[in-house]
């Protein structure tokens, strides 16, 4: 019996040691799923790149429902994963409660700000990237009318819209920017039918370049634009140029992969606080590849790159909707 107990005790100690020694990083994907061709997949790409470069391993959890957030977070923290990265603003509240319970674990959250000593909050300057694609839209538009279709009407999406409108008006002050939100509930992220109807409505109003920042709804936007004659669309988050080659003007890419890779590289005990990923540190940008090479001329690209440099150096500032919850360029 005593022998048995000592074996069990040894096993438990071993397990504990193994648990603390491993300290593999972990990543939690939000509801969209790991392979959403967009936001979460980009995070996965970053994690995978880290694993390939360092030969390390990482743990991952995919959210299946809202209720799992806290449970998943605590499970990873209990298991000794460190650092833990999570994608999506929806983790904000949960992390605020969980983080103080695990002071030795480093957390990184993307797209939200959580003020805890052991949390790194990664936010992107979507307005800067949107400004650049707005410039491209204004240059590609023949009618002088361009459109924006957002998913759920939340401040983050308004930030996209506002930067876009500013970019359009910077190139063509007489341009008209149409803006629609798909809805006010989370269902607005997955309604491609309504997305394509909105696109048709904007085309009917004269828009010939339409920017979709709407998750799964954007699939419908890109499709409807590709079906119409001489209408271009702009993708978001990941590079979506390949979805309809020659019909997608460009994509506003958000380098979630870079943010994840950096968090994994920095390892446990990384620098916390708010980390802004903007044009200055390759956090956002516009996608240029074989699929849209014919749509974006060298002259267009050069001009937009010049603007990007000005924004990065602080010479040009793009209005951030978050700063005052208002947009001087667009009426919502």
């Amino acid at each position: 019996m005593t022998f048995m107990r000592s074996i069990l005790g040894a096993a438990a100690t071993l397990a504990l040691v193994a648990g603390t020694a491993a300290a593999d990083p972990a990543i939690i994907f939000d509801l969209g799923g790991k392979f959403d061709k967009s936001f979460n997949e980009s995070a996965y790409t970053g994690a995978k790149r880290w694993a390939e470069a360092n030969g390390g391993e990482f743990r991952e959890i995919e959210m299946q429902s809202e209720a799992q957030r806290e449970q998943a977070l605590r499970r990873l923290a209990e298991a000794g994963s460190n650092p833990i990265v999570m994608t999506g603003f929806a983790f904000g509240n949960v992390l605020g409660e969980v983080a103080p319970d695990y002071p030795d674990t480093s957390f990184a959250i993307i797209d939200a700000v959580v003020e805890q000593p052991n949390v790194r909050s990664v936010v992107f300057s979507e307005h800067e990237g949107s400004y650049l694609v707005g410039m491209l839209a204004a240059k590609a538009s023949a009618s002088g009318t361009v459109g924006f279709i957002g998913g759920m009407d939340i401040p983050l999406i308004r930030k996209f819209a506002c930067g876009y409108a500013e970019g359009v008006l910077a190139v063509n002050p007489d341009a008209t920017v149409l803006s629609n939100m798909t809805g006010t509930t989370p269902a607005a992220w997955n309604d491609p039918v309504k997305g394509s109807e909105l696109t048709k409505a904007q085309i009917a109003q004269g828009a010939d370049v339409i920017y979709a920042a709407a998750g799964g709804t954007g699939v419908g936007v890109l499709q409807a634009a590709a079906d119409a004659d001489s209408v271009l669309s702009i993708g978001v988050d990941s590079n979506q140029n390949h979805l309809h080659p020659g019909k997608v003007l460009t994509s506003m890419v958000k380098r979630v992969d870079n943010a994840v890779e950096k968090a994994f590289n920095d390892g446990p005990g990384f620098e916390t606080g708010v980390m802004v990923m903007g044009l200055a540190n390759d956090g956002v940008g516009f996608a240029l590849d074989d699929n849209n090479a014919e749509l974006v001329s060298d002259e267009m690209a050069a001009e937009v790159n010049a603007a990007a440099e000005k924004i990065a150096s602080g010479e040009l500032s793009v209005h951030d909707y978050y700063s005052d919850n208002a947009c001087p360029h667009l009426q919502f």
Partner: protein
Amino acid sequence: MDFSTLIQILDSTLRMATPLLLACLAGLFSERSGIFDIGLEAKMLISAFFSAAVAYETGSVWLGLLAGIGSSLVFAAIHGVASITFRGNQLISGVALNFLAAGMTVLIAQNWFQQGGRTPSLMGGARFEPLTLPFADSLAAVPIFGPLYAELLSGHSILVYVALLAVPASWWVLFRTRFGLRLRAVGENPAAVDTAGVSVVALRYSAVAIAGLLCGIAGAYMSTGLGAGFVKDMTAGRGYIALAALIFAKWRPWYALSACLLFGLLQALALRTDVVARIFPFEMPVQLLDSLPYILTVVILAGFVGKAIPPRAGGTPYVKER
């Protein structure tokens, strides 16, 4: 508002109303026979997925449509077995099917295509192409009537016309055939139908199957006609709006058409903020337009405008007296 804008809005109305109309007629058949159907959403969703998946794999939209209808019929059969044969609670069975469809479609889509719970985009023959009605081009020049015919009526996918034709067909079946009389009777007083020697169970199963067929077409239209592929939860609550339309229409086919067109018009208007701003003298929030179908239904249910009386035996499983 100029004439061409009006045409565009009505055009959009017709597209938005079609899935509602098909689902509403499906609910009409089911509820007229005494089986409440909360699971319209589930049947549309499962059909939307299987029609897109099969259309993608085979390249034929017609095979996709068949697969969609088939999957919807399977769900209808589950609902039938649960609520007719085993006399379970019809609402709970419907809700369970809604959950099942929402989870199952994403799971299978992820397993088959690895694209985050969606199907790849459909191309060419895997989609329903717009159909140009005969003489549409030559009549387009005629004032008023020309644009109405060429732009509003013509140029939709074939399923839109199927949905429109389903309205008189439903009316005829329900109110002009022996089957329809019995079907309506079984929803009001199944005991009387049973006494007359007609099988209550068979009638209810056939009603549920018709509902499955119509929901199958609605789902296929969403993923292969309106859209080009399946995206998770793409029905986005249209099954519930169809239920609201059914109450609004007081369980009658022609009223169902007008209710669905009205709800479609509200949705289409919500898409055109520029037009809304011009029509209404005050600032009209788009969200209000989106919620009007529900508000109108509540008004009807509260008895302010006429009275909506559901089929009397609706929701209660039939137990033969011993």
